[in-house]
């Protein structure tokens, strides 16, 4: 295994079209669950030019105004005026209601242990969960930094420091590793688009972003950019007016950004736009939860947990662990311990994380907030799968 290498991960801001679609899809999931915790919904979005496409398949008593959800996300993200905005956007909705009762899910919060087997996996999927000791959030350093930069970049634009920034932006961080430990920031790259007709000029903008975005992110960090670190800010020249008017977006196209920045394996299945019944979404959370606790328990400094589900089975058909040679105990032993202490059955995941009720219990929506800056390692959200509550049990 190569131990010395340079690795880059990227993140995008909420205004990026792909992320916009993820947020719209998850806002729809939130809205359904908020009104009807047993709702079943798949929502996919695509956006291009002035048109938003929504495809929703659902079973629910309640009526959700999908275009309205889309418009409110678009507007909250900061698209106003210009070529693409909430009011003028044309929203094309494709609605299919599943035939009612037969597929209607239950409320799993009260499900007793004996009934957990009744909900089977509804998809064939292999998912991965990962945790490592690069950061307190137990995320790989490159993606963690990329998210931090993206968040700062977006907030600089939306909170008013740098009002000329468009909500669409992209960040990338390259980190040098020695012996699989991050040692140095190799490069930082920001792509920040400008609102039309407002830009301070390339030089001033570089200075602004260095000061308002990069410096605050690295303040207090152990590893900081050094003299040699290459910093690219809009290296390709000014980028005026980004967003769907310039490039199109699609739900589920940023799965690496949603997970570990490609530092390790991740499932190809999209996370956003799926209700908690979808095993390909929630198993990723459960796998992450297991990995976090393995690292927290000190069993390894890096841990990848793999879960494979088959259609019609409640338990995963395969549970694997890879500690990348950092383990203090045998991988087989780790598998045994997590199998004992984690319940990976779909109904158990829903019940234990309260995934049906979180949207109504969380101000401003639950899934929607996951749709930006990653679903994992979110120290800002107090997510159930980030808890180290089982670390002691694994020791």
């Amino acid at each position: 295994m190569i131990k010395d290498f340079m690795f880059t991960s990227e993140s995008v801001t909420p205004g990026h079209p792909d992320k916009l679609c993820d947020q719209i899809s998850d806002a729809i999931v939130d809205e359904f669950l908020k009104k009807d915790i047993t709702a079943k919904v798949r929502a996919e979005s695509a956006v291009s030019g002035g048109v938003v496409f929504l495809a929703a398949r659902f079973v629910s008593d309640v009526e959700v105004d999908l275009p309205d959800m889309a418009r409110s996300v678009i507007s909250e993200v900061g698209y106003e005026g210009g070529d693409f905005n909430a009011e003028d956007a044309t929203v094309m909705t494709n609605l299919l209601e599943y035939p009612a009762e037969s597929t209607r899910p239950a409320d799993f919060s009260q499900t007793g242990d004996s009934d957990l087997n009744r909900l089977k996996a509804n998809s064939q999927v292999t998912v991965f969960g990962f945790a490592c000791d690069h950061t307190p959030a137990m995320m790989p350093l490159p993606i963690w930094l990329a998210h931090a930069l993206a968040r700062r970049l977006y907030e600089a634009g939306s909170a008013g420091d740098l009002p000329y920034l468009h909500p669409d932006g992209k960040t990338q961080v390259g980190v040098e590793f020695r012996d699989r430990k991050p040692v140095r920031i190799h490069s930082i790259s920001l792509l920040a688009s400008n609102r039309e007709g407002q830009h301070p000029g390339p030089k001033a903008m570089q200075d602004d972003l260095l000061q308002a975005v990069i410096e605050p992110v690295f303040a207090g960090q152990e590893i900081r950019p050094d003299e040699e670190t290459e910093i690219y800010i809009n290296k390709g020249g000014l980028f005026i007016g980004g967003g769907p008017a310039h490039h199109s977006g699609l739900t589920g196209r940023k799965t690496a950004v949603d997970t570990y920045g490609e530092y390790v394996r991740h499932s190809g299945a999209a996370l956003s736009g799926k209700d908690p019944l979808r095993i390909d979404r929630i198993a990723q959370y459960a796998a992450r939860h297991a990995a976090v606790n393995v690292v927290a328990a000190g069993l390894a400094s890096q841990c990848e947990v793999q879960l494979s589900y088959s259609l019609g089975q409640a338990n995963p058909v395969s549970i694997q662990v890879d500690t990348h040679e950092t383990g203090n105990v045998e991988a087989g032993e780790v598998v045994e311990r997590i199998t004992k202490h984690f319940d990976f059955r779909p109904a158990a995941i829903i019940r234990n994380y309260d995934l049906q009720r979180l949207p109504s219990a969380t101000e401003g929506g639950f899934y929607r907030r996951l749709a930006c800056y990653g679903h994992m390692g979110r120290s800002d959200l107090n997510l159930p799968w980030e808890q180290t509550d089982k670390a002691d049990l694994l020791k």
Partner: protein
Amino acid sequence: MRKVLPAISINEPTQVGESGTRNLKIRLVHTRVRGRVRLNINRLYRSPQLKQQLEQGLRGLPGIRSVQASVLTGNLLVVFDPARPVDDILGMVHSQLGIERSAGASRRARAAGGSDIRETLSHVVDLFTQGLRSPVAAAVSGAALSPGGGAGDTSLVAAEEPGSNWHRTGIKEAIAALDTSSTHGLSAADAAVRLAKYGPNALPEPEARSNLSIFLEQFNSLPVALLGVSAVVSVMTGGTVDAIVILVVVVINAIIGFFTERAAERTIRALTGSKPQYATVVRDAEAETIPIADLVPGDLILLNPGSYVPADVRLMQTDRLSVDESPLTGESVPVTKDADFMAEADSPLGDRKNMAFMGTMCTGGTSRGIVVSTAMSTELGNIQSMITTAEVPETPMERQLDHMGTQLAVLSGVVCAGVGVVGLLRGQGWIPMLKSSVALAVAAVPEGLPAVATTTLALGIKEMRKRRVAVRHLDAVENLGSVQIFCLDKTGTLTLNHMTVVALHTGDRRYTTSEGQFLDHDGVVDPGSIAELRRLLEVVSLCSETALAGDRNNPDLEGSPTENALVESALRAGIDVRALREQNPRLELRERAEGRPLMSTQHNAGRGRRLMAVKGSPAEVLALCTRFEKGGEVLELDEETRKAIIKENERMAGDALRVLGVAYVEGGSKQRHEPENLIWLGLTGMADPLRTGMPELMSLYHRAGIRTVMITGDQTATAAAIGKQLNLSGDKPLEVLDSTSLDKLDPELLAGLIKKVNVFARVSPAHKLKIVQALQRSGFVVAMTGDGINDGPALKASDVGVAMGKTGTDVARSVADVVLQDDNLGTMAVAVEQGRTIYRDVRKTIHFMVATNVAEIEIMLAGIAMGYGEVMNPMQLLWINLFTDIFPGLALSLEPAEPGVMERPPRDPSEEIIRKKDLIRMLEESAIIGAGTLGAYFYGVKRYGGGLAPATLAFNTLTIAELFHSIRSRSNQHSIYHKKRMPPNKYLNWAVGGTLAVQIAANYIPPLRTVLGASRLGLVDFAVVFAGAGVPFFINEAVKHFTTARQAPPAIEGAYDTD
């Protein structure tokens, strides 16, 4: 439309300025062709006198070959000896007009020599500078409307001839020129004088074709010409009797054609009939409504949305006036007008924003304006005068048939010639060959073909009128048959446009209403006997701003649709709302406001008690309640009940109902201000209910392969719920397009997007045009309903615009192709069925005519090719044409709808009326018929050797075979082997029976037999005849049966997919 060619516009008109001869302008239009010159003389326009002067004066002058002057365009065309210079000719023209040219102009013109046209044109500017001297001048000067001014102000007025330059005239100048007032309008006396001077403001009705011309036109066709030639040939070859018979056939044909065509023409004429129209003008400072015929130049006119512009108007004050000018410019997007705008001199009509033109229509806003020209002086009149004859426009189907008829005539001509040549080569004499060719020509020509379409379409219109569907254009019938997408307005078309309480929830029971009755899940209930329901209805009647006016028993409700619905529901429940309000006088009313989504009223309930009635957003009202009523008791409102109510609210909202929560509280005399501690009564759910039978109707359209699309201003959630109720998408996902700014979307993109859309949400009526155009761009034939003023453009743009007869506006009705007189969308299905049937009937008739005519050709051709000479004589062929072709053909065009016609997808609009595969089928069938007839002929040859018998056998066989074929032509799918019968066509029964009787007569009445050159046939012969005719029939039916069984009509769902 007036088109200003660039070549003309570069040269300024020549002006002739002298007292009394103002405004003479002459332009050189072109000299491109040697020996021809076209001039435009403004005074020639509408001056027959000048036309005569010029034509007579110029003709006969040396070098001039012909002269043509048009009073419609003002153009003068002179054809002259190309050897003569153009200049000479111009000289002659101007001397006719009594003008002398300046030497300079003459020289320049000569120098140009007509070679460099642009230069010549620019030089013509000063060609004519002298005044008019000839008597023509007098005729010229009085011809047109020349406003105001004395004799002296020549140059200015001449340059600004207001006849066509009002768009360049300021408002004040226009008022002055027309001697009117911007405030008082004209005086009644002045208006009367002007009316006498300018005549009524009416365009002459295009003259209908006279009976004689319809009759004569029957002879003006290629088939008749061929028959005429045949008659002449017959006379030359000694066949006088033949010639007479041919002429009789021609005349009989013409008579039948005359009657059917006249009936059709009458039906079509009736479509264009219009009611008298009125306009609002100011005269003597008073607004009054006058018939538009009484309008005169100078009238001060008021334009309102929905009104036609009755004359050409110079606008004075515009308030967001928008005008649909499509009748004039073809531009379907309404133009916004602006009185203060000043147009360029030669700007096209569409850019003259300070003018409104006759025949256009106000779609929005208002305006005052001055009438500047009326009747034939208007732009519309100008266009109309260019249309010389009042032809009913041909529909695409008629054009196709015309084309096909000509092709067939040419083809048969070629075949005739071929037969003649083959016969000659085989050594037959000239005369018999010529006769045979003639006979063949007579046989082959499908005389009635082009008339079939017109007749059938017109009959269809008549039939639809009986079913309360008024079709206003002939080609709409055709389009009806091919409609692929039906766009429906939600409000007023699918719904009643009347908000109604449809669901209630009190205590823990649900109620629905239907036709004024209250029902729970067990059936009808008496709302008076259920305490909380009665109370709820009383509270909503009190907490309401709806006023009750008029009749005590059947009051008019004046208020918002929602509150009216609630009060109406209370009245239906037998509550005396008036009395209730009198007993509980209102003390205070607090309306719903931002952040307070409920309305509360306080009432003096008598005996010192106060009642607070509250209604509003269910969640908000429920939050203020602590108790609720159930079974007449007031109970504590526990969490469980609250949840149940919230759940019920969501369920009702999910059904696209507008839901309100109702509560009340009674107390002592202490005045409360804010509602609190209320007693919950229940929920009311209101909707603009769908008309009955709509979901069934939608599925009827779906089965017929017609996609239904709903257009509504509602939000997506509501729209989707209704779309679901209507099952607009069948079993496919419901696609909703939600946009308030369709106009900002790239049209190509829109066209791509909307291929599968079922519901357009949040769409304003103005965007309907975009939707129609986008659907058409995707290649669909679109029908659209509309009843509002601004639906006009969309109705016109759609292939079939549908307006409602009762609720629609006049504007919508006047531009629609189809008016549903009883507002019943279901009759549209009838119309579609008729449209499809008519198209199929035309096809059937053609199928019959072509197949039988081709069979005749084949038989004759085969006989000659095989050396038997002519199988039938011309008389026999004519006989077949006269009886067996015409009557069954006509009867076929009256076939009733085939069963299942509404179970099939619409036809492909781009497909020809006769497809290649139809043609092949006709050829196959004609060959089989021909074989049967030839079989009978050969039997005759074998048995009788020669003489009249073989031909007689062939003649009878073919006649009967053709009658059989008319039965075969009734359907392309349905054969006699099907278990189910086709619906009977009594016309065809009569036609077949009658023809059969005539045929028997031909065999048994000796003189007739002699003329036909037939012999007497025996019983065996008749058996052979029926075998020769019947066997092909059974074979053809079998072929049909098995080919259609193989290609069974496709299942509708799969057949119509727009992917």
